[in-house]
């Protein structure tokens, strides 16, 4: 585990570590708050500009973004490969479903119940993540991948094993409150969903961005680059790895919970091994270890199935062939892209953009000053 490898270029490490020293104290938080505020305003504007279906898609992007951002911190910055984030999302989603169901059955209603459910979902996922993380801290490379793969395969199967609680293959429905009446009687439900999901995602991103730039973020990277050196520098390697796993699990739980709220139902089919692989692919294609890359990945996860639907509609095929093609084309594209990115452009989309940006800036040094 000593080499940085292609998973994250070393240049990133040095520049990120050097940056806080140049900036004055508190600058990072202010900068991140500013970025998040701008993003929130943009999303607010978009929620009015876009039609309801696009609002829903954007909300789905936000839900995926929670999970991909956490995964990119874990895999890109801490060097732990997790194939089990789909299962962690399932944990969050089922917790939200059970909580909302319990509130609804007991006749409770109110705007604060959803945040409570999401909070419980995060706590539940943190608990699961801590268990997996403690095991993961002792495992390396392919062993860790194998264990998390087993988690990804097994957790959806548990919903069938304990179908008294989780209702087997059918899954559970998630009762969600309509938007508050103060927003007006004709307020579109999709816009409300986008607001909820975007609020969760932006909050998670703000916290993650600060974490990455903090002492913990530097420790994550140090452990990824060289465990022995990190230990010699006084870093508790196992604790750092568990912290990274727990943080990542918390965001995955939030993402899963939001996904459950958006779909208003949960079922094991939605959280299969393929979802876990999709998440990993999204962060790799976006650019491992970069939060902006996680955003690109989340957009891809929603946009690519949509695109492949558009493509298959153009072709004249028999209905069954069209259905097969539409279901599998995004998988094939994702698989090929993943291999190509990994072999030819390890920085992913965000890495390519950053290189492009640097090249443009280098060409015009005068304008910069």
């Amino acid at each position, binding site marked *: 585990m000593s080499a940085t*490898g292609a998973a994250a270029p070393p240049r990133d490490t040095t520049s990120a570590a050097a940056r806080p020293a140049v900036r004055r104290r508190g600058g990072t938080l202010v900068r991140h708050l500013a970025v998040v505020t701008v993003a929130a305003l943009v999303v607010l504007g978009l929620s009015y500009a876009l039609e309801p279906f696009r609002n829903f898609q954007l909300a789905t992007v936000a839900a995926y973004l929670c999970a991909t951002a956490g995964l990119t911190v874990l895999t890109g910055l801490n060097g732990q490969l997790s194939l089990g984030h789909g299962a962690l999302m399932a944990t969050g989603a089922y917790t939200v479903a059970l909580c909302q169901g319990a509130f609804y059955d007991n006749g409770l209603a109110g705007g604060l119940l959803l945040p409570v459910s999401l909070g419980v979902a995060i706590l539940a996922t943190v608990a699961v993540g801590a268990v997996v993380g403690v095991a993961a801290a002792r495992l390396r490379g392919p062993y860790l991948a194998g264990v998390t793969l087993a988690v990804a395969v097994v957790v959806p199967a548990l919903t069938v094993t304990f179908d008294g609680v989780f209702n087997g293959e059918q899954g559970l429905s998630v009762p969600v409150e309509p938007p508050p009446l103060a927003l007006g009687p004709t307020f579109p439900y999709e816009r409300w969903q986008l607001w909820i999901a975007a609020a969760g995602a932006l909050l998670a991103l703000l916290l993650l961005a600060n974490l990455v730039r903090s002492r913990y973020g530097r420790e994550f990277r140090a452990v990824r680059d060289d465990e022995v050196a990190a230990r010699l520098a006084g870093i508790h390697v196992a604790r750092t790895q568990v912290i990274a796993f727990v943080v990542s699990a918390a965001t995955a739980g939030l993402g899963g919970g939001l996904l459950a709220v958006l779909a208003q139902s949960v079922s094991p089919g939605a959280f299969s091994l393929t979802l876990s692989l999709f998440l990993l692919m999204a962060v790799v294609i976006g650019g491992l270890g970069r939060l902006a890359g996680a955003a690109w990945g989340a957009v891809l996860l929603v946009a690519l199935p949509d695109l492949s639907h558009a493509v298959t509609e153009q072709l004249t095929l028999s209905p069954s062939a069209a259905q097969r093609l539409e279901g599998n084309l995004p998988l094939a594209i994702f698989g090929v892209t993943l291999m190509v990115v990994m072999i030819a452009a390890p920085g992913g989309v965000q890495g390519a953009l950053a290189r492009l940006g640097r090249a443009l800036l280098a060409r015009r040094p005068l304008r910069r000053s």
Partner: protein
Amino acid sequence: MDRFVFLTLDGLSRGAVYAAFALALVLIWRAARVVNFAQGAMAVAAAYVAYSVSAATGSYWLGFLAALGAGLLLGAVVDRVVMRHVDHASPLNPVIVALGLVLLIQAVLGMVYGSEFRPAGTPFSRGALTVDGFALVSPYDLFVFATVAVVVGALAWIFARTAVGLRMRAAAFAPEVSRLLGVNVGGMLTLGWALASGVGALAAMLVIPTELGLHPHAMDLVFVSAFTAAVVGGLDSPPGAVVGGLVVGLVLSYVSGYAGSDLTPLAVLVLLLAVLLVRPGGLFAPVAARRV
């Protein structure tokens, strides 16, 4: 008691398949230091080839041979086209690329064959032979035992007794020195991938008829079980993989027989975690000096 005997024999038959599949994983691990997470998908692809050939010719055995050939070919292609070009500096990279391959293969299979379960034929009856009223073992189980025994024996013979096997071991153990001594290291690596993929395809042919049937995801859980088997034996040890496979097969058979088949995935996870946490190098690992 007769139930225990039945479950033991059933577990050994399952375990033999896991052993073969784990052996395929160990082969690639020893040759290239890669755990081939695409092994399951590659094996399913070979099994689909067998399905097509059998459907076209009506002969199980032609399909069986076709699966073996497709497995060997697919392994060589995967090594030459994909894995050869992966940067091995970080152990994450080959794993991620293999997962991309999983998605691609499953997507292509889904496009060509659809995602419904297809029945997979067997050359022998799966009905158990009875001795004094005890249901013991089916002819198909005996076929599985015999096939796996032949494969294990053949691999042991290749690696221990033939010049090619010696070259393959040398290429894996000391690539630079082997190259200086005139061994075609790249070719040996490709041969290793082909052999492993062929063994994987064989295991898929043996196990798929005993499960739900042919499906792009048919080997997902088998892969996890076989990975567990390889870890139980230690990823570096071929005899360990065989023993690990039998152990995992027995454990799963007892769990599904006495506690319910729903619990087998959970049992795999618990077994895998237990082995990795208690003895991460596997049961057959030599006592290792501290690794840095």
